C-alpha cells in the first residue's frame, strides 16, 4: 500500500480498518542469495539497497529480537557530515545526501529535519581544530561556517555566555545537519525492503555459521538452518559474538552509551548543539522532548543500561551549557550497546572467510551513517568490490598502519 495524504483520507473514511501490515512475517525459506544478520538500521538499509539498487531480492534479514530493537531505536537521532578525515568525510556526506532524499525514496516520512548542527568551541586551540575540520569539509564541497561568539549568541541566546566555566568562543556550524525520527528509519527501510521481496525474519537468533571448505553455506538459527550464498554481518554491539562463530578476530570492544529524553516542552531549542567543553549534545524532537546525551560509560558492557554517575555528569554539562534547563525534568534514560572500534571509525569490508562480509565498528555514531552504510555494504556484497566512499574502512587498516583516528586517541576504544 502506498502511503499518501490520499491514502490516509481514504482509510479514515472506512474507519482505519483496512490498513495492511507494513511488512510481512514470513517463515524463513531454506536458502537465500544473501542473509543479513541484524535487523537494525544498517541491516535493514543494506537489504533495502540490495533489492532496490542492485536487484538482489532473494534476501533475508534475520533479527534475534524485533526489528529496530538495537541502536537505531535508542539513539539521539542526529545526522551530520562534519568529519575531519578523508577516510570519513566523503562517506558521511554521501550518507547525508541519501538522507536528504530518503522519504521519497522509501515512501515513509522519517521526518528528516535539517535544523542545523553546531559544534561549540571554547578555546583558541579548539577553534583551530574546528577550522581545520570545517576547511576540510569545504574542500569536499560540504558547506560549513565558522561562527564567532556573537553569531552563536544571536542564534542560541539561551546558551550560557556570561557565567560559564568554559566560555563559548564560537562554533562550527553545518546547516544541513539535523535530526531524523529514528524508529521511522528502521520501519521505512523494513517496509521498503519487504515490498521488494526481502524476507524480514524477527525473533530468529543466529546460533552458528556453517562453513564448508572455507566458504559460508548458511546459518544455524533458532528457526533452523538457513542456507545462503553470501552472509553479511550487521550486528553492531553483538558483532564479536556473531563473528566468533566464523572465527573472526575483530578490533571491537562493546560499550554502553546512555541517552535521555525530557518531558515534552514547547519548542525552545531549534538546532542540534554539541558542547565543546564536554561531550554533551542536545536537540528537541518534534514531539517536544529534549533528546540528549554525553559520553559513554567507559567500561565494557553488553547491558542496555547505564550508571547514575554518567547521568549526573550529563546533566551537569547540560545545565552548564543551558542554565534554563535546570527546572525542566528528564523523563527517561536508556543505554545502547556500541561496537567501539580501535580507532573510532567503522569497518565495511570482506573478511578472511570468502563470502562473509562485515559491517561494524560504528561506535556511537552509527545512526547518521545508516543510509550510506547500507548502500556501501550492499555495493560490496553485490559486486564484491568496495564503494569508493567507504574505501578506507578496511579491516586490515590496523595492521597496515592506516587507522582513521578522528579523535586522535589511539587504540583505546573508550576514548573515541
Amino acid at each position, binding site marked *: 500500500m502506498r502511503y*499518501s495524504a490520499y491514502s*490516509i483520507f481514504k482509510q*479514515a473514511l472506512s474507519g*482505519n*480498518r483496512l490498513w*495492511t*501490515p507494513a511488512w510481512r*512475517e514470513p517463515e524463513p525459506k531454506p536458502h537465500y542469495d544473501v542473509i543479513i544478520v541484524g535487523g537494525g538500521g544498517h541491516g535493514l538499509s543494506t537489504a533495502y539497497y540490495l533489492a532496490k539498487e542492485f536487484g538482489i531480492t532473494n534476501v533475508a534479514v534475520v533479527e534475534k529480537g*524485533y526489528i529496530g*530493537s538495537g541502536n537505531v*531505536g535508542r539513539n539521539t537521532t542526529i545526522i551530520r557530515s562534519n568529519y575531519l578525515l578523508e577516510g570519513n568525510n566523503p562517506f558521511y556526506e554521501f550518507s547525508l545526501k541519501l538522507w536528504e532524499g530518503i522519504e*521519497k525514496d522509501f*515512501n*515513509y*516520512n522519517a*521526518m528528516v*529535519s535539517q535544523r542545523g548542527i553546531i559544534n561549540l568551541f*571554547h578555546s583558541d586551540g579548539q*577553534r*583551530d581544530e574546528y*577550522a*581545520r*575540520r*570545517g*576547511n576540510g569539509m569545504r*574542500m*569536499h564541497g560540504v558547506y560549513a*561556517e*565558522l561562527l564567532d561568539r556573537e553569531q552563536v549568541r544571536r542564534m542560541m541566546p539561551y546558551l550560557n555566555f556570561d*557565567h560559564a*566555566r*568554559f*566560555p563559548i568562543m564560537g562554533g562550527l556550524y553545518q546547516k544541513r545537519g539535523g535530526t531524523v525520527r529514528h*524508529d*521511522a528509519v528502521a520501519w521505512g527501510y523494513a517496509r521498503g525492503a519487504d515490498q521488494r521481496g526481502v524476507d524480514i525474519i524477527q525473533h530468529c537468533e543466529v546460533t552458528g555459521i556453517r562453513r564448508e571448505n572455507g566458504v559460508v553455506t548458511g546459518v544455524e538459527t533458532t528457526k533452523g538452518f538457513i542456507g545462503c550464498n553470501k552472509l553479511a554481518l550487521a550486528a553492531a554491539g553483538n558483532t564479536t559474538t556473531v563473528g566468533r562463530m566464523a572465527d573472526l578476530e575483530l578490533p571491537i570492544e562493546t560499550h554502553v552509551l546512555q541517552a535521555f529524553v525530557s*518531558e515534552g*516542552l514547547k519548542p*525552545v531549542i531549534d538546532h542540534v548543539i554539541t558542547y565543546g567543553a564536554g561531550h554533551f549534545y542536545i536537540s528537541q524532537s518534534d514531539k517536544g522532548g529534549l533528546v540528549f546525551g554525553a559520553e559513554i560509560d567507559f567500561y565494557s558492557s553488553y*547491558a542496555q*543500561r547505564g550508571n*547514575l554517575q554518567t547521568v*549526573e555528569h*550529563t546533566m551537569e554539562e547540560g*545545565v*552548564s551549557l543551558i*542554565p*534554563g*534547563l*535546570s*527546572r525542566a*525534568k*528528564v523523563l527517561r*534514560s536508556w543505554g545502547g550497546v556500541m561496537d567501539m572500534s580501535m580507532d573510532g571509525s567503522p569497518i565495511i569490508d570482506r573478511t578472511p572467510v570468502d563470502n562473509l562480509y562485515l559491517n561494524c565498528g560504528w561506535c556511537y555514531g552509527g545512526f547518521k551513517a545508516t543510509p550510506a552504510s547500507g548502500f556501501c555494504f550492499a555495493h560490496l556484497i553485490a559486486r564484491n568490490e568496495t564503494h569508493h566512499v567507504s574505501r578506507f574502512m578496511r579491516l586490515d587498516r590496523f595492521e*597496515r*598502519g592506516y587507522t582513521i*583516528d578522528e579523535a*586522535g*586517541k*589511539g*587504540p583505546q576504544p573508550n576514548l573515541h
Partner: protein
Amino acid sequence: MTSYRLASGGAANRGRSLTFTFDGRTYKGFEGDTLASALLANDQMLMARSFKYHRPRGVVTAGSAEPNALMTIGAGARSEPNARATVVELYDRLVAVSQNRWPSLKHDFGALNNVLSPFLGAGFYYKTFMWPALFWEKLYEPLIRRAAGLGKAVMQADPDRYEKSWTHCDLLVIGAGPAGLTAALAAGRAGARVILADEGFRLGGSMLSESAMVGGMPACDFATTTVEELATLPNVTLMPRTTVFGWYDDMVFGAVERVQKHVATPSPDLPMERLWRIVAKRAILAAGAEERPLVFGGNDRPGVMTAGAIRTYLNRYGVAVGGKVAVFTNGGSGYRTAADLVARGVDVTAIIDARPGSADPVPQGIRVIRGGSVTDTRGWHRIDGLIAERSGFEEVIACDALAMSGGWSPVVHLMCQRGAKPVWSDEKQAFMAPDLGGAFVAAGSAAGFDGLSDCLKDGAAKAHTVLESLGRRALPLALPRVEGEYDASFAPLWYVPGAKNKAFVDFQNDVHVGDLGLAQREGFRHIEHTKRYTTAGMATDQGKLGNINTVGIVAGMRGVSPAEIGTTTFRPFYTPVSFGALAGSARAEHAAPVRTSPLAGWARKNGAAFVEAGPWHRSAWFPREGEKTWRESVDREVLNVRANAGLCDVSTLGKIEIFGAGAAEFLDRIYCNGFLKLPVGKARYGLMLREDGIVFDDGTTSRLSENHYVMTTTTAYAAEVLSHMEFAAQTFWPELDVRFVSVTDQWAQMSLAGPKARIILGRVVQDDISDAAFPFLAAKEVTLRGGLRARLFRISFSGELAYELAVPAGFGEAVADAIMDAGHEDGICAYGVEALNVLRVEKGHVTHSELEGRTTADDVGLGRMMAMQKPDFIGKRLSTRFGLTAADRLQLVGLKPVEADKEIRAGAHLLKDQAKPSLANDQGFVSSACFSPTLGHFIALAMLKSGRERFGEKIIVWDGLRGTEVPAEVCPPVFVDPENTKLHL
C-alpha cells in the same frame, strides 16, 4: 457546586488557609493540601488539555502517576513546567498556569484536532507530509512543533541552589505506607541503619487516605504514631518528599529530595532539591499498588477518576469530588469508595459492577447494576452523565463524577530497572515483582498483598527476613488490629466492549483502543513496536496508569495471555527528575574545579589577562597602558624576551618525581629516545609514544641523583602521563624498582628567558650559574639569596638563553616578585602563554597542536630521536608499520606568506599552487600560526604531504571558512636561530 470542601474531616490543616492562583484566578486552600485537592475544593475540575487532541482533562489520580493534571508552577526564572498538581504541595501565593492550550483552558483552538482525529490515528505522520519535500521543514514541521510539547521552559538561569549527597544504610525502605512503616519499625528497633523514603510530603502512604481503623485509631493516626516512634530512633532516617527514582548497580539508589519545593520563599542556605545516592545493603520496595483505570467510551471526561483517588480527596483532604458520584468497578475498591462517600454525605447515584455478582457490601440505598458497563460519558468540560449498559439495555445516569476501578497493579518499576522482567501472575491478574535474590524485595501491596492487615504484616515479615540475611535479629513486632478493611480483589476487565466513543488507554498521549488495533493490523505487534508506533506509555507518566491496560488489550486482540505479550522495559526515572537536581552544584562557573597556579597572584599584580587551559586558569598576556589589542601586548612581550628578558609562569606543567634503582631503565623504555646514560645534574628532552607508534607526549626529565629523577610533562597530558607510567610500572615491568609521585602542586615554576636571563638570575641565586658551571641542560638544586632551596633547569622553549626555576609553591609569588625587581633595570617583562606560543612557533618547537594524536616522531622531524637499537620501548614495534612510514605522510614544515602583510591562520588547508580545492588536492593543514614580531610577518607551522622535500615550493594556504587564500613559501620549521647559538650563550 459540584466538587467542594466538606465541612470537616481530612488531614489538611484547616487552621491555616493559603492563597494561590490558577490561570490568574485566586483561590484558597489549606496547608496540607495538594494543588489538585485545593483546586477540587474550589470546584475547578478542568485542569489541562491532552497532548494530541487537546481534549479537556481533569485530574484522574491523587498521586505521582497523574497523566492529566500537568501545570506550570511558579513565575519567572522559578517556573517549573509539567508539574503534576496531584503531588504539588500547596504553599502560600503559589502561582499555577495551565498548559498546551490557546487562547485559554476553556476555549482551546487545538481541540480542532479532536474533530480531525479519524485522520490523525497512530503513526499518521509517517505516511504523509512527504510532498513536496521542502514543505516538511518549512511548513508541516514548524506547525507540528508548535502544536506539540506541553509546558514552556523559561530558559532563564535558575536562582536556586542544588546539592548532592551520599548516604549509606543497612536497609532502605521505599514507601512509607503500611508495609513500609512496619518494615522500618521492625528494622529500626533491631538497631539497623534504616532509611525510610517516601515521595509524599507526609509519611503514611495509603493509610492517610483510608477509613479503616488500625490499632483502635483511624489509620491516619496510627501512621502518625508510628512515624513519631521512628523519629525517635537515632539509627532511622526519615526522608519524606523523597522519590527514589532509580536502582543502579551495586545497590546504589538514586533519590531526589524536594527540600524547598513547598516553600513560598526559599532559604538561600538550603537547596531547592537534593540528589541522594543511597548505598543500601538491602532494600524493601513498599511502593504500594496503582489502581487501574477502566477503558470505556469517554473514560477521559473530566470528573472520571480512579476510585482510590476519590477516597484520597475525600478522606485525606476533606474534598468531595462531586455532588453526585457514580461508580464503575470490577472489584471491591469501587464499593469502598461508595461507602466512604455515603458516610460523608455525598450522593452516590449508582454502582455499575462489571461482574455478575460479588460479596462486596453495598451501602444502604445505593443501586447496583451488576454485570453492567459504561459505554459512554457525557459532558464536555466535566462529566454530566454516563450511559450504562446491561444485557443490551442502555440507560443514562446523571453524575458529576465517576469513580472507576479496574483493579490493582503492584508498583514494581524500580525492581525491573536492571534487566529483570516482571512476572505475570494469573492469580493476581497482574505483573509481579521479579525475584532478585533477596537483596531487594517487595513488600505489602507492591508484593501483591491486598488488605491493610496483610500489608502491615508483610512489611514486618520482610524486614525480619532481610535483617536475618545481614546477621541481625529483630524482635517480633506486635501488629495492630485492623477493623473495617475491605476486599480489594477484582476480576480482570481490560476494556469495555461496545464503546460509543474513544476509549483511552494513555490519557496524556491520547492513545485509544482503536490505535492499538491499528498497530496490530499494520504489523507493529511486538509490544515495543506497539508502544513506539502508537506512543502508548511514552508520555510523562511513562504508562504508569495505562501500560497494563495496553498489554491486556493487545493480549486480548491476539488471543494470548498478557504473560506472552510482556511489558515494555522499565527504565529510570520512576518519575521525572529535574535537570537541576541531577546537576547539583556543578553549574555555571562551578561546572568543574579550577586549578590555580601558585603564581596567579603575581600574574594578577602584573595585570595579566587569564585564559582557560583545561582545568587551569593561565596568564595569557600582560597588557600595559596604551596597548589596545592583545596582539600589541604579545608582540611587545616577544620582542622584549628576545632583546632583554621575560618571566613566564610554567607551574602548570606536570611534574613527576621518579625514584628507584630501576628508574633509568624504566625511563629508557617509556621514552623513545635513550635515557640510560643521562648524567646526574642534567636534563634531557624526551618523547613518549603510544604503543601504536604515535607520539603521546613530550617533556624533559632531569636526573637529580643516581636513582632520583624529576619529569615534566605538558600541561594538558600531566594526568595521562602519570597514569600511563603507573600502568607500565605495575603491569609491563613489575620487576623494575621504580616509584612515582606527582609534585605538580608543590612547585611554583617560572621560566626566565632572554639574553639577560643569566644576569638577572644571578642576582637571585647564590650558586655559580655561569655557562661553565651551569651549562645548557644543567639541572640542579640551588640556593636562593635569602636561603630558600630551589631547583634550577637550564632548558628553553623560546630558543633564548633560558632557565626554569622551581620554588616551593608558597614562595612562588615572593620569588617571582624578586626576579621582576632584580630584572627591572635590564628591562624584564612578564609574559604569558600567548607570547610563549609565538616564541616556540618562531623556534619551530611542537606542541599538541602538532602532536595531535595522529603524528609520528618522524612526521614532526624527530624521527632520529627514536633509538631503534634499544631492545624495547613503548611504541617501537608498531611504529614501523607501512602506513606510519609512508613517504606521502604529512610532515612538519614552516610557512612564510609570499606577501609579507598577509595573515595565515591555523586550521587552513594547503593546496598546490593553481590547484582547485578538493579532497584529492588537499596537501595538509596549518597547525599553528602567529604573527612573528621578530620577523615582522606571519609565520606558521604546517603539516604538509612529503613536506620536507618541498622547502622553497610556493603553495596556497586555503581558508575557505574565512574566505582567504594566501600564497606561501614552504620553509624549514625553525624561523629564529636555527643554529641554536642563543641557547649556549
